[in-house]
């Protein structure tokens, strides 16, 4: 009957593969968290079997039988037993606290030689800015073997930056910085979640940590944070890059490409057509300046009938990226 031991056996070979019930251990910290997790889990199985086993044993042994005169024991308490079962759990609890506190301090104090990356969470996407290189990217691309320090803040509501593979999580509070660090060991891609409820597309606020070898990382930095060309290494057409930005930068959450109006107007056939604005003025045909202005200062000319809720992408998209988005919109006839 005991689920615990089956699980324990499965647990044993959980080294670096994602077992069916635990993410992989991508860093030293992850394995130390797992070892405390296992310690508490074995302890809980032991006490669970002790308590529930005793309960079942008593129910079976002292089950009332028909016709047998009932004689029950007059025991009302037993001071030694009561002291024993307060002190022993007390000691075990202190051990759990101390071990948890030790590991937790390790994750709180950032090592010295960490490479700093700034993270901005906003309603429903993450953006990562590399201060030295001035690159802004939707994914966290890092070289293997280099400790990374994340300095995070939010633009609107509470979010929470969570990488299960590294077992780290920190709330991203608007108006304040919060700090997190991890040391990626070898090349891999890890999933990033938002775990603090933040509204409509809280479940779509996902991103990736791409751990590259140092050469590939240098290459990535060299061409300004864009994945170099498709398979054949030839440059990707601008509209194609625009489509990737459309999906990764959160435009998809409010603008559709098939004509249906969502939170914002649809991009299908938008280029070159007339638009009436909320403040009564209108524009004969949508041109590149209007699109660029709406990306950088969305509140300037809002299309009539739509809420003025679009966040500004000032400083998050460089000119080449805005160029490719405009190309993409043009291609949507």
């Amino acid at each position, binding site marked *: 009957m005991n689920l615990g031991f089956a699980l324990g056996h499965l647990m044993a070979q959980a080294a670096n593969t994602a077992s069916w019930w635990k993410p992989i251990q991508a860093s030293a910290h992850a394995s130390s968290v797992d070892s405390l997790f296992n310690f508490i889990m074995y*302890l809980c199985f032991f006490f669970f079997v002790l308590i*529930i086993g005793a*309960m079942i044993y008593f129910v079976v042994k002292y089950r009332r039988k028909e016709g047998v005169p009932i004689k029950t024991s007059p025991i009302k308490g037993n001071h030694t037993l009561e002291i024993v079962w307060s002190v022993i759990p007390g000691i075990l609890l202190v051990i759990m606290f101390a071990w948890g506190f030790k590991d*937790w301090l390790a994750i709180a104090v950032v090592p010295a030689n960490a490479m700093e990356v700034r993270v901005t969470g906003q309603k429903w996407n993450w953006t990562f800015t590399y201060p030295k290189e001035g690159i802004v990217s939707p994914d966290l691309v890092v070289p293997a073997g280099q400790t990374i320090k994340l300095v995070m803040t939010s633009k609107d509501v509470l979010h929470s930056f*969570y990488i299960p593979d590294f077992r780290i*999580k920190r709330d991203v509070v608007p108006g*304040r910085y919060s700090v997190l660090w991890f040391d990626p060991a070898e090349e891999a891609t890890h999933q990033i979640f938002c775990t603090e409820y933040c509204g409509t597309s809280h479940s779509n606020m996902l991103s990736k940590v791409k751990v590259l070898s140092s050469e590939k990382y240098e290459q990535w930095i060299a061409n300004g944070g864009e994945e170099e060309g498709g398979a054949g290494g030839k440059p990707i057409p601008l509209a194609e890059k625009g489509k990737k930005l459309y999906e990764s930068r959160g435009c998809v959450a409010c603008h559709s490409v098939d004509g249906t109006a969502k939170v914002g107007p649809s991009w299908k056939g938008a280029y070159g057509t007339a638009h009436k604005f909320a403040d009564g003025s209108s524009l004969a045909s949508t041109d590149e300046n209007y699109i660029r202005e709406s990306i950088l200062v969305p509140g300037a000319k809002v299309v009539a009938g739509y809420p003025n809720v679009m966040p500004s992408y000032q400083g998050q998209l460089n000119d080449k990226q805005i160029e490719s988005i405009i190309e993409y919109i043009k291609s949507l006839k």
Partner: protein
Amino acid sequence: MDSNRNSAPKSAHAASAGGVEPNYLNAHKGIWSWMTTVDHKRLGIMYLVGILTFFAAGGIFALLVRTQLLGKIFGGPGKQDWLFSGDTYNKLFTLHGAVMVFLVIIPSIPASLGNFFLPLMLGAKDVAFPKLNLMSFYVYVLGGCFLLFSILTGAVDTGWTFYTPYSSTTSTSVVSAVMGVFILGFSSILTGVNFIVTIHKMRAPGLTWTRLPLFVWAQYATSLIQVLATPVLAITLMLLAIERTMGVGIFDPKLGGDPVLFQHFFWFYSHPAVYIMILPGFGVISEIITVNSRKQIFGYKAIAMSSVAIAVIGFLVWGHHMFTSGQSELASAVFSFLTFAVAVPTAIKVFSWVATMYGGSIRLNSAMCYALAFLFLFTIGGLTGLFLGSLSVDIHLHDTYFVVAHFHYVMMGGTMTAFVGALHHWWPKMTGRMLSEFWGKVGCFFVFVGFNITFLSQFLLGTKGMPRRYANYLPEFQTLHQISTVGSYLLGLGFLITLIYMIQSLINGEKASKNPWEAMSLEWQTDSPPIEHNFHVQPVVKHGPYEFPEIDHSLARGGH
């Protein structure tokens, strides 16, 4: 939905044996007599009907949430969800949370069974302030209407925790929901005041503090928390409402406030609130296990004192909800240590209950089945709290499905199982009818199995890193979610069976005697259902509540 409200059992139901005096149900006739009653028993029944109705509503929201989480393969950002859009799903889980917490589980045992049985157990004619009791009921109804009004005008999508700055910037009707909870808080405070004064001032002659049934001790500790914690929730929600309407800048960072401050204000109430929920459940379990094992409780003083200890230490640990929320390292360490301290009295209680069964003569009626289910489920719930209490593991598990499974094991597996068990234990006394033992056990089986399937799978989802409150999810979580949803249907079925045979027992259930379980505490010494002012003659207490005749004191000298 429930028949108690309108069909007070047929007048043909003659006053039970015991005397010509009519019982509390048919002493007065007509809806008006029910609406203006100050009799604690009738108020208990009215609360019970309200709580069960809202429990059904909350349950339906839960089933809708679980059905959404069957989920279509999640195809990437912006993919349309298969059943509900993101917004509707957010409103559903918020309503499930708010209705279950504020309207069902906080008043569940104290307001319905506490109101009904506290005066009976103390040998008193009524609670200390009967009119205040009636007012608390109407405050509860008014609070419920405010919440329903907020549902009709577009519902709330902030989660039952109303975290700012989302709750102060979202466009849904947060203010009316917050006002509803503000009003419900006063019903909780006034009930707490009422019970503390009743326990202090209206005990029967001879009923000293060490002869009180443990349900009364648990109710005393709960009322202590209700009185001291709920006002802070009232002020927090009032500040939130003012912030939304007038832009007061205490919590919203745009206006210069600090959202982590809101979390401190909120959890200062909400963690003691989870002890308001579980402590009455402890009281009920102590009653059921002793009566059905025919044995003294093991370590009466330890259990009574641990209830009060939990109530007090419960106020020191709220920071463990905020380990990852930007709280300072020193505060997190202090809160983590105190969280482990509060685990000790809870452990003492569980060990003492199991020890009570040693050397007993255990009768497995449906109430005892629910009590054993409680022990199983609450032990898992309590033990998984240790994972969330230790700092480094909580960083991984916070706000994932591990937390969802943990608090459902403690609240649903703990308090609601104890509540349904208590209903089975005291049903004969409340309604004068017996419940069918067979169907009771069938219902308990489905609830137990359905519950475990639903929430054991969620522990595994949590360790895999599946975050909370997600409308759709990555493909690797799909199978576990589908298992969990199937489990939730079984759980719903279990409660449906329970509801059906409870209604059936009201209609033509077999008559109940004065003391079907041969218990020794005072509520079993009056008729069932009891007369309007409880006791024909004022009872005098000479011995403790668990001195069963079957206890063989000769064994003590001989010892075995």
